[in-house]
């Protein structure tokens, strides 16, 4: 049945495009697939070089702290705002739905569960993909096109150790901490939105919300964001370090960093959620 559908679809496309256009389409698709494989191959080699550089001393602790501040502290207001807004929206939407099913008393638990298990981590991942992905992509891209990275190598300093390893590690360390902040703000603002509609004390809200929460509901989803951090850091640094073509290239690197890191964060989330369910049930 599937083969038949594909055959019909293929014939329809061939008739619409004509033989010449079809060949052009096939060759474009072929080069797209090849460049995709090349991209993953280059990324693999980039990761291998990064691991070699990161494991060998000297360790750039000063730069790591600076990056943790730049990626962590400076993203905190944005992540807190995004987390808080998610809490308000969840509260407004779920209240209505639960009221229809006569299960309004479950509202705190639903808000807490949805925030700690999914909304907090994914919102943090996507916000950081945008802010940090674009920032790193543009910063390293502009360093590349203005020969600052060459200057660093000429000074016998490995840019993979000084620039890339510190940024990737800072992303890995900061994402779980920022997720905690998003979770906190989401739950708190969920309570605020709830209590404005129907007053409830914060203590009672939290007691109801966390009554059935286990560590296994909280720890794996929070720490899965370390993987998001790795993805954001690696993709943004990789796109930045392979920048070509002046300021236009820098723009392309910033955009592609955001698009690719967001995409891979969402795909990784699907895999990780499935994995967590398999491991923790």
């Amino acid at each position, binding site marked *: 049945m599937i083969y038949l559908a594909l055959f019909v679809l293929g014939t329809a496309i061939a008739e619409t495009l004509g033989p010449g256009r079809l060949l052009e389409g096939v060759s474009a698709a072929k080069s797209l697939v090849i460049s995709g494989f090349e991209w993953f191959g280059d990324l693999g080699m980039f990761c291998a070089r990064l691991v070699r550089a990161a494991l060998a001393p000297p360790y750039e602790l000063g730069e790591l702290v600076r990056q943790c501040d730049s990626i962590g502290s400076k993203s905190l207001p944005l992540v807190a705002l995004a987390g808080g807004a998610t809490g308000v929206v969840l509260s407004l939407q779920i209240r209505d739905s639960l009221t229809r099913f006569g299960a309004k008393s479950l509202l705190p638990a639903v808000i807490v569960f949805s925030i700690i298990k999914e909304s907090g981590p994914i919102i943090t991942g996507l916000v950081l993909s945008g802010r940090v992905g674009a920032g790193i992509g543009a910063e390293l891209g502009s*360093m590349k096109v*203005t*020969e*600052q990275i*060459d200057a660093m190598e*000429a*000074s016998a*300093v*490995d840019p993979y150790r000084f620039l890339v390893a510190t940024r990737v590690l800072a992303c890995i360390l900061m994402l779980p901490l920022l997720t905690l902040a998003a979770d906190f703000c989401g739950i708190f603002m969920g309570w605020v939105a709830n209590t404005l509609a129907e007053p409830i004390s914060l203590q009672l809200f939290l007691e109801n919300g966390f009554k059935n929460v286990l560590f296994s509901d909280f720890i794996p989803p929070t720490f899965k964001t370390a993987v998001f951090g790795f993805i954001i850091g690696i993709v943004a640094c990789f796109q930045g370090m392979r920048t070509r073509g002046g300021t236009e290239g820098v723009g392309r690197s910033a955009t592609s960093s955001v698009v690719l890191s967001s995409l891979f964060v969402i795909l990784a989330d699907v895999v990780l959620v499935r994995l967590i369910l398999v491991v923790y049930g």
Partner: protein
Amino acid sequence: MATKIEEKDETPIIISNLHKGFGNQKVLNGINLRVARGETTAVLGRSGGGKSVLLKLIIRLQTPDTGSIRIAGQEITDLDEEHLNEVRKKVGFLFQQAALYDSLTVEENVAFPLSRHTKMSQTDRKQRVREHLANVGMDRDLRKMPSELSGGMQKRVGLARALVLEPEIVLFDEPTAGLDPITAAEIGDLIVELKQKRKITAIVVTHDVQGAKVFSDRMVFLHEGNVLVEGSFDDLQKNKDQFVAEFLGHGSR
């Protein structure tokens, strides 16, 4: 893979049969070049003729297709990263656009190689940075960011950074390009001063024939990926090659 530091030949820079291409385009086509200790060699040639590529190959910012490059007695073409960095510490590089780190101040830019490769105390490091900045007349702008500096000032800071580890060899990529004649002459004077005081070995890639006449001991003409002719300015003026005559004629105007 070479791992031991070899110190046999005294000549600091020896390039033999060096080839480099990008795709189908051949940029360097079997270059041979020796630069003696304390000598300043100017490399001249048309834009896009592979002069900057040659400099980048010398500290392996790019890898050659084939050929040999010996720096301070060490073959660098097949050297591992750790030993390559030991060689790089002996070489200072002034980039065409200075390539100062945007996020660091003038002082931090010059201190960067020192903080990575020496165990100097902070006071000694500051002292050394200030001395080197004073040598290029930039010691009053320590706290400024690179974006606050003019092109000439950036080149001076870049020069201070290239020299702060007190290298034996210095590579200059278009040190006077894009500068007004007065600033260009000042940079030229700094190169002469450096040569006289520190006896450094230098390669200066430039289009500036008049400048090269002042600061170089020898000129090398690159044409179509190879050394067309080399010698002093006077030797080159006597050369009958049309390209050399045309280049010197236009450059001397």
